[in-house]
């Protein structure tokens, strides 16, 4: 499937509105466990009864995973290029990027295998432009200089990881009742571990305060943080639960990460996708 076509479909929610194709997907998912077991795909470990598939209207596990795969392609290529760029200082930065790169590669492989195991064709890897049409030069390809390039490498990594956390979280509801839910949550938490470390490597807190993108983050990344100022959780304004510091606006926003909708995640990823 062509990436742009896929993303358009996701944005229009046409995939989830097409009930007949959704039924087909449920059918392929129904046989997923067996196929996965046969091919030893770790997804198969998350044994789930199939009866709950039809419970939620409009949920579309395959589309959710295709979105996840798209974001993982983006991260995987970014960290590969970062490690090859010569921009990363040795020591902690290189160690951190190498560890994250290892995970993003594993996530790509894992999601592709899972989709194939479910009878779906993984979305093709897009062509990325991490300069966003010349706005950035994170790999120092255009001679912006090591220092600026490194700052951009860190800023983009932070934006990608924080986006990943929010995007996976936004798809959890679409995976409810599917065997993909637990692995997706397992990846989601890893993205959060990455995000925390990259943020701390940049001198920020590992968690997001209000909707602040943080010092040194380009304004273009603000979309990643909009909405993080929410303090209403399950209908409860958590700042009203107490009077002291744990219930301040700052602590109350830090203590909960917010979702990105599929549409919002696609809009962010699309900045870096040429075709």
């Amino acid at each position, binding site marked *: 499937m062509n990436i742009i076509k896929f993303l358009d479909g996701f944005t229009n929610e046409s995939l989830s509105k097409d009930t007949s194709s959704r039924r087909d997907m449920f059918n392929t998912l129904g046989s997923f466990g067996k196929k996965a077991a046969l091919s030893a795909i770790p997804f198969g470990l998350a044994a789930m009864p199939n009866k709950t598939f039809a419970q939620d209207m409009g949920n579309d596990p395959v589309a959710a995973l295709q979105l996840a795969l798209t974001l993982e392609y983006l991260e995987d290529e970014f960290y590969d290029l970062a490690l090859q760029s010569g921009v990363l200082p040795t020591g902690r930065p290189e160690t951190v990027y190498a560890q994250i790169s*290892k995970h993003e590669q594993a996530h790509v492989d894992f999601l592709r295998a899972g989709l194939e195991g479910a009878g779906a064709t993984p979305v093709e890897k897009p062509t990325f432009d991490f300069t966003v049409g010349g706005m950035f030069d994170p790999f120092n390809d255009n001679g912006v200089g090591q220092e600026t390039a490194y700052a951009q490498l860190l800023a983009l990594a932070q934006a990608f990881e924080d986006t990943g956390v929010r995007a996976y*979280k936004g798809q959890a509801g679409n995976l*409810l009742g599917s065997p993909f839910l637990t692995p997706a949550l397992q990846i989601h938490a890893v993205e959060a571990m990455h995000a925390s470390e990259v943020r701390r490597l940049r001198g920020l807190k590992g968690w997001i305060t209000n909707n602040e993108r943080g010092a040194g983050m380009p304004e273009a990344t603000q979309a990643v943080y909009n909405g993080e100022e929410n303090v209403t959780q399950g209908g409860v304004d958590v700042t009203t639960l107490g009077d002291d510091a*744990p219930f301040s606006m700052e602590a109350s926003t830090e203590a909960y990460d917010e979702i990105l909708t599929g549409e919002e995640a696609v809009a962010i990823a699309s900045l870096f996708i040429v075709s």
Partner: protein
Amino acid sequence: MKKNTIKVQPVQKATHRRQFLKLGGMGIVGAGLLVACSNDDNGGMMPNPEPEPDPEPNPDPDVVFDLGEGDLGVLNYAYALEQLEADFYTKVFNSFYGGITDEEKQVLTDLYYHEVNHRDFFKAAITAAVEGKADLMLPTLEFDYGDLDFGNREQVLTTASVLEDTGVAAYNGAGRLLVNPVYLTLAGKIVSVEARHASAIRTLLNPGSADFAGDDYVTVDTGLSQALKPSDIIAAVGATGFIATPFTANKLP
């Protein structure tokens, strides 16, 4: 520096630590018998009676709280874990270990804030969910850290690391038990913050390393973090002896 592994009981000698939480018979549904010795668990406030050789199921089933089933069971389960984390960090915050760095103080203060917020959120959410049936809500738990030395940096950070890692694995494993997507999303909002904590604590313990998402916690082949079911989590947490109030999880896997 050798990395701590993911197991509970990181630092204790367990001389007066008791197994307050204990796995029931293997193969039965649920996490089993979490029965405390009812008399000798209050820190020497009462004379120690005859030793109870093995905790038995409480003769009065009304006394020991069971977490329940379905969404409510999961909420109570999360509430128990958040109570433990909140209590632990409150103690850390109230008396920081000597020689604490500014960075460590900032991280541990934030973790105290976040976990207290989570705890009170679950209390509010469960209060709403049980619709006045207060006996369905997990009561306020009591804690006993045994020999854990809150004045010792290594012990505090190692315990924090175990608690955060355990929290992530617990939420990861509990998501699929939820039916209501609103609760699933709420759990997702919290688990990623727990994972951010886990990462930060791991880096405090081993600066400059890959431990923030270490190979001991994230499976190398798949890039997946741990997911454990409630009975495994409760057994592990129980083995620490930290939770002094007995409860059961007989209706959770």
